[in-house]
């Protein structure tokens, strides 16, 4: 009876400390009234009903998908782009855990959290896009092993689980569960190996999907090596996302970082910029190699050629030079600009492959419906809100000092 009373006394304080950030409920609710939250609320107020409407009325009523365009924004953006932009998780994880680049330790947790949230949102988007989402279990029991999509289904499933397990390290720190925290922390090395393995496979397999569309995907984008392009650009996206995220996090969560051991974010950015320059240039070179190999030079002077050049020169070559210049002359802002451009370029690439340059010979065109756009926006918003909610509570931007018993 006595213990019941202490539990009853403890519970509200736990809730107040851990969930309400130490505020009383009215204070906490008042603290949510900010302009950005208002924007998020509007996006969700439109997007969530659209998502419900898709399940109530079907794909035909909610999307502009057609017989010629079976894949639209939800695959091209939510899935293709969501997954590639979440590549920071395995890129930084591998740098810290496997390559021993300890200086990136401070950004490992945010990168893993971004990846986890990103994958969960991509899967939600996928479930909205699938015509018969309840049959998704068939991918497990009814292995179509000759399909790149089968590989993706398995890897995304496994990798999301790995990310969840990696995320439990800060989660248990937050809850103060020492014993299991120690176990998970020891498992981190093995989980990182798995994360690199699964990421290599599905990031490249997302490109392999289009190997089956040689007549439909424009020759400037179609290449037997498209899966290598997808993998290299995933690493590039991972590096660039971490730079941008680092910049935003340190501004947005400045108060959260007060009193924590100082991390030289600028030095990290420069270090990532060096890596970005090399990977971006390699990616540009490979893309050019793809054009040579596909004898697609002639198309460069067409409208699609302009689209391709904007993507590869404007958003790969130029940022790679900016990265190199910025890293060499320690111009942090230039590196951040290069990162933002690179991300835009990779989003553009995924949309080009799956929407704009797809069906290039077919007069039918696809443009997403307003409902597709609002669902995609809502998913991104939910991701950002979830990220913020967790960062404000759990030890993501730093390790809980009570737990950093090593070194």
């Amino acid at each position, binding site marked *: 009876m006595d213990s019941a009373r202490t539990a009853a006394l403890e519970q509200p304080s736990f809730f107040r400390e851990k969930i309400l950030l130490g505020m009383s409920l009215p204070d906490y609710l008042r603290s949510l009234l900010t302009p950005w939250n208002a924007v998020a609320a509007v996006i969700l107020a439109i997007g969530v009903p659209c998502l419900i409407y898709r399940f109530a009325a079907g794909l035909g009523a909610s999307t502009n998908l057609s*017989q010629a365009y*079976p894949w639209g924004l939800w695959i091209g953006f939510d899935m293709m782009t969501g997954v590639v932009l979440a590549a920071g998780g395995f890129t930084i994880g591998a740098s810290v855990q496997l390559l021993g680049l300890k200086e990136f330790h401070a950004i490992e947790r945010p990168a893993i959290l971004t990846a986890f949230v990103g994958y969960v949102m991509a899967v939600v988007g996928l479930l909205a896009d699938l015509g018969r989402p309840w049959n998704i279990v068939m991918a497990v029991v009814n292995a179509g092993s000759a399909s790149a*999509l089968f590989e993706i289904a398995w890897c995304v499933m496994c990798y999301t689980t790995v990310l969840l397990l990696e995320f439990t390290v800060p989660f248990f720190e937050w809850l103060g569960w020492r014993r299991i925290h120690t176990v998970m922390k020891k498992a981190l090395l093995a989980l990182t190996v798995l994360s690199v393995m699964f990421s290599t496979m599905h990031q490249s397999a997302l490109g392999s999907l289009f190997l*089956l569309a040689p007549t439909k995907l424009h020759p400037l984008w179609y290449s037997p090596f498209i899966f290598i392009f997808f993998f290299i650009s995933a690493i590039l996206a991972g590096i660039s996302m971490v730079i941008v995220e680092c910049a935003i996090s340190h501004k947005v969560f400045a108060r959260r970082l007060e009193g924590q051991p100082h991390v030289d974010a600028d030095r990290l950015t420069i270090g990532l910029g060096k890596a970005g320059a090399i990977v971006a240039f390699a990616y540009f070179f490979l893309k050019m190699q793809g054009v040579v190999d596909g004898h697609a030079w002639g198309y460069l002077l067409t409208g699609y050629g302009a689209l391709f050049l904007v993507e590869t020169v404007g958003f790969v070559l130029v940022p790679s030079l900016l990265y190199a210049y910025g890293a060499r002359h320690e111009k942090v802002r230039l590196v951040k600009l290069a990162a933002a451009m690179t991300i835009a370029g990779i989003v553009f690439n995924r949309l080009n492959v799956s929407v704009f340059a797809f069906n290039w010979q077919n007069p039918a065109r696809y443009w997403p419906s307003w409902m597709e756009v609002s669902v995609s926006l809502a998913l991104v918003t939910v991701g950002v809100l979830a990220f913020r909610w967790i960062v404000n509570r759990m030890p993501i931007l730093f390790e809980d000092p009570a737990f950093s018993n090593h070194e």
Partner: protein
Amino acid sequence: MRLTRRSFIRVAGVTAGGTLALSAQARQGSTADDDRLPGVLVDTTRCVGCRGCEAACAEANDLPAPPEGDLAKLGRRDTTTRAFTVINRTDAPGGGDRFGKKQCMHCLAPACASACPVRALNKLPTGPVTYDPSKCMGCRYCMVACPFDVPRYEYEALAPRVRKCTFCAPRQARGLPPACVEACPSGALTFGRRHELLEEAKRRIYGEPDRYVHRVYGEHEAGGTSFLYVSDVPFEQVGLQAGVPEKPYPELVAGALGAPPLVMTLWPPLLMGLYAFSKRRDEVERREADGKEEHHG
């Protein structure tokens, strides 16, 4: 040292095994067995455009009857979720009409079935490419993969299905020809063994070399298809897709799909090696630092 060699042999063995298993899985295009499968020869020079095949198809598949009226007035039509075959009109070389028939080509190594992650689409050993909605999760990758734009999706439905010609698999199982062939009054459609139809097609081309295009459409397209076409107008004109690669589609992706066994066997030892290397480097650095301190002390 001995341990390293042993683990190397283990990795190499697993890798080689995985690669072999995968290469055994990939289909190698049309084989002698495939040629004995059933096929249909479409001779566009013999088609009179009566659209009896459309009506018979609708009846056999419980679909609404095709629209009535003159083909010229109906305009260009395509297959839909409720019309598995359609006839389109085009101009003949010396004036007059030519008709093109569209339906599923029933590839020997179908792109759709290889794309399907849940094996809802299957190439039956008896020839037809069929679809099972109870397995389908609705990813629509089959539609992306099909070079002939055949699979159609019921976007309006809450439990949408992929819809397409079944090669009348149920009828064939009863020993009957496909409904469209049975209904054809002009001899434009011939049902038979694929290898016999190929011979017949070539016999017709050699018999009237000035008339026919010197190629059988479907002999090599996408690795070979069950529906074969001969024509006296360019194949594109009767609605057939130009530029379809001759490679069987599953082979287009076989190389990339060979990567996972390699990644799964090579990455862990490689990454652990990198880890061991970086750890050793740290240790050496630490020891050197300690050593220096001792010297100073």
